[in-house]
């Protein structure tokens, strides 16, 4: 118990002292997670909306596939990206394995199904309400996609945050494709895994606390946005 108390003490001192090693890891984590969330949203939001409003052969299969991809095992994604980026793989020439870019690729693949599946659900529900009115105004389903995305910006913002949360807390795939190289690809989750197995609890705890605070802040922001939007935009 005393060890734990000492570890907590040290962890808080690391945070309060703005330990450069610690904050390097936090900053890198934020960078790759934001980049992957952004990339996943740029692709996933329009993809989900198009699947929601457009009728095309195989649409049901796409919806089922999107929903099943929600449960995509991270390590499998890690393995697939590893194989694609490794020297012998199809993208090996780019030399991206064990770089932050590799982490972004893996996290994007993990977050994309979340963003696409959730936004499809939101947009499809709204489309039922908007469909006749927009058709009456002369709006085609494809033209309705940006309209619906803009109109659903507040609920969709929570989807974006959910995607960011998933990216930031992901460990398996990031470990495989990033390699947890100190100062290069060491992010909060991989550092926690490493320091815990090394027995360096203060650093692991400090990172764990910061990760929790981050997730909490993200959820608080999502909640605040929803509250504000219902009050001001109905």
């Amino acid at each position: 118990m005393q060890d734990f108390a000492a570890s907590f003490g040290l962890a808080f001192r690391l945070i309060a002292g703005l330990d450069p090693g610690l904050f390097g890891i936090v900053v890198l984590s934020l960078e790759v997670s934001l980049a992957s969330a952004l990339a996943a949203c740029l692709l996933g939001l329009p993809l989900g909306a198009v699947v929601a409003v457009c009728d095309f052969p195989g649409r049901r299969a796409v919806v089922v596939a999107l929903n099943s991809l929600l449960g995509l095992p991270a390590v499998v994604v890690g393995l697939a990206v590893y194989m694609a980026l490794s020297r012998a793989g199809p993208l090996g020439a780019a030399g991206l394995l064990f770089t932050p870019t590799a982490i972004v690729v893996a996290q994007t693949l993990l977050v994309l199904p979340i963003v696409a599946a959730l936004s499809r659900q939101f947009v499809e529900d709204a489309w039922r309400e908007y469909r006749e009115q927009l058709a009456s105004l002369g709006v085609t389903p494809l033209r309705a996609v940006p309209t619906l995305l803009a109109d659903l910006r507040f609920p969709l913002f929570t989807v974006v945050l959910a995607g960011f949360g998933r990216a930031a807390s992901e460990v398996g795939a990031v470990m495989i494709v990033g390699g947890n190289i100190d100062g290069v690809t060491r992010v909060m989750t991989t550092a926690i895994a490493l320091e815990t197995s090394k027995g360096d609890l203060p650093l692991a705890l400090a990172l764990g606390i910061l990760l929790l605070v981050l997730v909490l802040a993200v959820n608080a922001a999502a909640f605040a946005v929803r509250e504000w939007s219902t009050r001001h935009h109905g």
Partner: protein
Amino acid sequence: MASAPLLPLEARGLGARLGGHLALHGVDLRIDGALPTVVLGANGAGKSVLLRLLHGLIAPTAGQVLWNGSLARPRAQAMVFQRPVLLRRSALANVEYALAVNGIAGDERERRARDALERVGLGPLAGRPARVLSGGEQQRLALARAWSLRPRILFLDEPTASLDPGASAEVERVIGEIRAAGTAIVLTTHHLGLAQRLGGEIVFLHEGRVAEMTPSATFFTAPRSREAERFLTGELPWKPRSPESPSA
């Protein structure tokens, strides 16, 4: 905008089956737009379905909708729904959106949008988020949005159904102005007072068929069909039985 005449609007043998239920069948009618057309009928009679078929929102399962003899659906028409769907943006931006979709750009777009808002009395609320407007204001915004498109014919589905009397009166005033500006009006309503004040032609639907099509003045004093008579006495229990109508 095409200057070719778009009216008369004709339905020939029009029918629609929705989810296995025959919502409308064998509807023949002709709307020349000189007078407002008011579609009356009980709940489930097929009023909204008829309007959606004419406006082209649903495809008929039988018969045809002809615009001046042609099957092509003209652009210069608009519809106001019982519960308007407004976008989560300002009132002005809602009207501008409809104009943008219809290819009106730049200064012209904003000018026409502001003008439409002024006409329905929403000028001062142009910057307000549309979704926080009251029910009556939302319905007037929907009217402004439809009007800004300068339709030759405007369909209205129960435009006053969920409004209080004051808001209804405002909406009725705007409909009158749109009509005065030369747009043909086709509306469904439960509101017999509104139907009477609009005058025009009454299309009375009963169980998916046109039971009768009569000028308003005749319809309310001497309906030709037994169904309409029952409807009127049921809806207007205080209405004195007219001497020439047989008892139901």
